[in-house]
């Protein structure tokens, strides 16, 4: 022990906690060297210092601080015991444990991939169903549009027919089915002045799309194409068609009306099966 008055003079300052930096370290080193004089002085001064600090007006300490410090201590204790435990236990080489960890990792990646694939598949199916729905919607709209067009045409046709029936003069002839179409019949009503007429048929069978019915007028022994039409499924018995032809003249000038079944594009001369015929002026 080497006493030094320099440190004796610092005992009071150190006791107040007012010594800092290298002075503090040197002082502590001196006290640790068991200098009895300074040690005794310090013990005395720390008691006084404690008294002074304790005599000061107190501040309110938040109760949470106690919990915080004790919790930190508990945490440090757990960590410390965990480190000690690790240090005490022999280290076992992970010969068996490593592969399952890898396998676990691989399984995780695999599951992740499967999940991603399922998500992509689900998303694709969702998009596909959306596209299908859009197609269906578009198709529905087209159907509705065509129905509207059809109804508009029909309405226009009906108006034309009403106008025709109101007009004067009118010619009317009755149509009879051929042998193969004996239950079929019809009428042709026309105004020879306006050159507008209407064809009404009954019980004409529906025919495939590649075929059409064609109405001919025989005049001066020559067939004249008047109208090409087909019979739809939704019409049950009767069908009415508007005829606009400059050839629709006086009844006595027309020799015969015939309806044949032709190919889709229609024929130049009657060449298909005869369905209905009526002779006006044989």
């Amino acid at each position: 022990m080497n006493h030094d008055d320099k440190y004796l003079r610092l005992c009071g300052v150190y006791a107040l906690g007012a010594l800092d930096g290298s002075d503090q370290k040197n002082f502590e080193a001196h006290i640790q060297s068991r200098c009895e004089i300074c040690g005794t002085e310090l013990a005395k001064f720390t008691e006084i210092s404690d008294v002074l600090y304790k005599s000061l007006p107190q501040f309110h300490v938040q109760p949470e601080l106690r919990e915080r410090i004790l919790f930190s201590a508990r945490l440090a204790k757990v960590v410390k015991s965990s480190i000690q435990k690790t240090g005490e236990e022999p280290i076992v080489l992970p010969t068996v444990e490593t592969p399952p960890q890898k396998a676990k990792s691989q399984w995780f990646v695999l599951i992740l991939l499967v999940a991603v694939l399922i998500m992509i598949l689900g998303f694709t199916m969702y998009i596909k169903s959306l596209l299908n729905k859009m197609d269906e919607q578009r198709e529905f709209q087209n159907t509705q549009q065509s129905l509207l067009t059809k109804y508009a045409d029909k309405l226009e046709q009906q108006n034309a027919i009403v106008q025709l029936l109101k007009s004067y003069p009118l010619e009317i002839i009755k149509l009879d089915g051929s042998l193969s179409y004996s239950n079929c019949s019809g009428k042709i009503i026309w105004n020879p002045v306006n050159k507008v007429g209407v064809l009404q048929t009954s019980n004409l069978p529906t025919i495939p799309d590649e075929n059409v019915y064609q109405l001919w007028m025989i005049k001066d022994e020559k067939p004249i194409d008047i109208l090409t039409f087909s019979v739809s499924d939704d019409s049950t018995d009767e069908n009415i068609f508007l005829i606009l032809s400059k050839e629709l003249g006086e009844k006595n000038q027309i020799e015969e009306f015939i309806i044949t079944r032709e190919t889709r594009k229609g024929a130049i001369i009657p060449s298909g099966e005869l369905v209905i015929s009526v002779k006006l002026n044989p």
Partner: protein
Amino acid sequence: MSNGLSKIKNEDFAILERIKQAEETALAELYDQYSPVLYGIAMRVLRSISDAEDILQDVFLQLWNKPDSYQSFGISIGSWLVINTRSRAVAKMLSKGVRHQPHQIDLNNITFFSAEHLPQNEFQSKVIDAFKKITPDQQRILTLICHEGFTIDDVAQILKVTTEQVHKRITEGLRIL
């Protein structure tokens, strides 16, 4: 004088042994006993609640994690905690570059024991009486350090003396007390 802070060494030894055994109740007891004083010391230096709380946490956890760091210099755990708290608080203040303004201090308006600070027990009464026995200069120095949280350098600047003179007056004052 003796008080609750300066425990006899046997008691300190016992509680230190319990801390070495990681008994949380020992730390809790120390905290309950010393935290008001230590918090006051830290607050006077740092003047920041969060910083003061951090200092207290550091001090108690140092004792908890490294109980051997409490070297018995012939001082109690309480004194060790006081010195440690104060020196840590000063170090933190200096590291943050936040200094009190020594030139703004009005020496006529500082007092260790204010008029409204009545002694709460016989012990404090004795301290107040003893404080009156030291010189006004020594009273100012102890007030600036303990009550106002100034460093020795600040005190030397305020009083326009050297740090050695401050050291000397502290020692003389404490001897009288």
